[in-house]
């Protein structure tokens, strides 16, 4: 028996595409919207707290970001963020808390390979590309701003 004689790649791939279980887009978007929105509400609340503490705008920005990163790292450490992420998808990946999760989760994962070649080397396996392309974009935008601004 030669399976390739009874079905070719193209037909098989088409059948797989047609038959495979689909994402429930509406439900997933709603979950992402809800959780992402709530994280943003939390950010706003932290802004207000910064205001109450009489911080200026720059200090409030730093306070808000740091607090969110801390919470993202904390919930990753106690094993809740991945549960949230499975439900919320992009809703919890995109905010800054997701960035904290993407750095803390490899730190936890690779601690057994040692502090230097484990944690040190693997810390940015997920977040690395975001940093690389983020910094490149910042430099490019800076250059454009410098030349034309």
């Amino acid at each position, binding site marked *: 028996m030669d399976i390739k004689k009874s079905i070719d790649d193209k037909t098989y791939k088409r059948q797989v595409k047609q*038959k495979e279980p689909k994402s429930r887009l509406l439900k997933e978007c709603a979950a992402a919207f809800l959780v992402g929105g709530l994280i943003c509400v939390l950010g706003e609340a932290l802004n207000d707290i910064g205001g109450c503490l009489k911080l200026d705008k720059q200090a409030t920005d730093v306070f808000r970001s740091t607090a969110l990163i801390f919470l993202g790292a904390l919930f990753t450490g106690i094993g809740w963020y991945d549960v949230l*992420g499975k439900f919320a998808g992009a809703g919890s990946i995109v905010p800054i808390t997701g960035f904290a999760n993407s750095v803390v989760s490899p730190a936890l994962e690779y601690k057994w390979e040692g502090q230097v070649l484990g944690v040190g080397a693997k810390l940015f396996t997920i977040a690395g590309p975001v940093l690389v392309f983020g910094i490149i974009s910042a430099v490019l935008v800076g250059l454009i701003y410098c030349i034309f601004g």
Partner: protein
Amino acid sequence: MGKRIGHRTVKFTNAPAIISFASAAGENEKKGPYGGYFDLTFDDGLWGEKTYELAERKMLTRVSQEALKKAGLTPADVSYMLAGDLLNQIISSGFAARALEIPFIGLYGACSTMAESVMLGAMLADGGYALNVLCATSSHFATAERQYRNPLELGTPRTPTAQNTVTGAGALVISAQKAGFPAVTFATAGRVIDLGINDVSDLGAAMAPAAAETIITHLEDTDRGADYYDYIITGDLGTFGSEMLLRMISGTGRDISANHRDCGVLIYGGDKKMGCGGSGCGCSAAMMCGYFLNEMKNGRINRMLFTATGALHSPTSMLQNETIPAIAHAVAIENGSVV
């Protein structure tokens, strides 16, 4: 002596027998509908060890020792240990073999390893090259995740076709010419089949064509109908992969829908949290050495075709945009059919 029949099948003339078997499983597998069948179970991924890799190694070592104990054998009685797993350089197997001190032949067939080891073990025993052969394999959710996918605590959702790597292991002992045990009667080696699927979250669909080809080749080579077997078992196609398998086989004019069972579908009993079902070497190994062989021993199953499937990709091949090559090996295991 013609031991080869048809295109790719060998017939065992000396009835190599499966004289003992043992299985191990983790927490989620224990909670599943077949939880009661596993010999060794544990409630956390580490099983008292410092790392998940050590836990997997312990699982494979312990399950091998358990199979030997049930057979009343010591490692010195075993001619070869045939084992493999999913980790780079098959470290679980190599380190387990270090502890067991049995001559070791390392295998890599991804999740097809249980069938691959039974096929080769039966050949060694049938050919008179071994008295007793230990066949074993394992997989661990946490070790597989960190090698193939993302850190465990990373908050990313699963796609609808994804499967869950089973934390489990299975080991069995094949012995030459022992009556009164289930015997390996035929083995059909699979070819590597790749129909262009490149989604690592859809391994069931990538492996289904290989399973279909091996099953049909086996039936053609042995001139058996699908209904000859009580069960035609696949390793870890999951719900969607199984659907594609049945579709492909019915396209060739055969029907295995009544007696087909997939270990990946069975092991979690359709728990939605596990996606399309279980996967990994340990999935078919634990189900085979936990449930199916036990049913054979008790005479509730008499003939089964065990077809474990494996996806032969790696994280590197996926990053280099390769598609997923897959393989399936089939072994026929039958009660009371000493040739």
